């Protein structure tokens, strides 16, 4: 399986949202890192990765996210993930990622906990 990854970025108040569509594999590394770096440079307090349209994340994809977690930690940014399928929620728990990122069912519930509502879309 190899569905090319598309990435969309937007900011909601001081929260960055990176929506991924396609497969999260080693082929997506540059795109995901560039997307995160671009939002991280804006000094946002929190970044949410939205996996709603993602059907496949392989171990290389998990490795990319671990790299992002390390970057966020260094910058003092909070990282959340939203929209993971039940399968990948389980995988995230098994690989211990739930100790480092907050997991939400949807972007809305991830935002609710921050209490922000404005929506400014920046196409990726």
């Amino acid at each position: 399986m190899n569905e090319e990854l598309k990435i969309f970025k937007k900011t909601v108040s001081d929260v960055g949202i990176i929506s991924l569509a396609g497969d999260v594999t080693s082929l997506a590394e540059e795109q995901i890192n560039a997307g995160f770096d671009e939002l991280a440079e804006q000094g946002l307090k929190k970044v949410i990765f939205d996996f709603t349209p993602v059907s496949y994340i392989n171990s290389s994809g998990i490795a990319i996210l671990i790299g992002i977690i390390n970057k966020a930690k260094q910058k003092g940014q909070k990282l959340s993930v939203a929209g993971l399928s039940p399968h990948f929620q389980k995988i995230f728990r098994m690989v211990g990622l739930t100790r480092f990122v907050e997991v939400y069912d949807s972007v809305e519930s991830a935002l609710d906990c921050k209490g922000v509502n404005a929506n400014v879309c920046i196409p990726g």
Partner: protein
Amino acid sequence: MYASPVELAAVVFSGILAGLAYRCRGIDDSALAEYRQLSDDLHSARETQRGLMPDMPSDIPGIELEAFCRPSSMVGGDFYDVFRVDEKHLGIAVGDVTGHGLPAALLMSLAFGVIRAEAARTLSPARLLERANSILCRSMPHNRFVAVAYAVLDTETKRVMVANAGQIAPYVSRNSTGRVEAVDVYGLPMGICEDADYGETEVLLGEGDRLLFTSDGIVEAVNPDREMYGFARLEADLGLIGGRSCRRILGDMLDRVMDFASGAPAADDMTMLVLGVN
């Protein structure tokens, strides 16, 4: 006798073509030789990798072990290992290095060696993962890690201590009830965070019980409609294995996964190991 300019040009052009053809022949030959060498090396690497993974011991009273490892390319990043830690204890590891192919195979050999070396120093699977992780953190390249489920079996009491560094959680199939239970122990894959700590949990195996380890290539096998085999199917299929021999379980489970995939190519290595008490 002088040739006309046209004849001369034709002769020169033919000469150039002949020269090019000769040189291309040389390139073809050397490329082919390199390809053959690479192919031979890959075959050797595959055999070496297969040789690392041991035959299952068959001389331990009341214990049955079976395993398979199917790389998705010539060599892979998945591995299993079973070895005697001491007279009474058996070490069991099922691992998966990020990616596949030669880079994963090289790291797999490293992880395999580190686990074997450290296993002699502790009977605690959690402590072993911590030590192995600390060593691997110094050697793993960027964005690579090793997921390993490691267990130590007391061959007399049939008590198994299990720890997990990012591998798919093992499952226990209980013969007396037919229930299938995930062994709830998780942790970061090795090679990411040098001071990662790991927990361990005890599984007591009774007569006819089976403990099954898998890699993510099993649960993430896909069919032509891009559906995943997934945990629900794995658990349902494991619910049907009660009382079967470990060898038959492996065969049946592989058949079920391959039937589900319906010919779709495997995107990842597939590994399964079954420990049974009889």
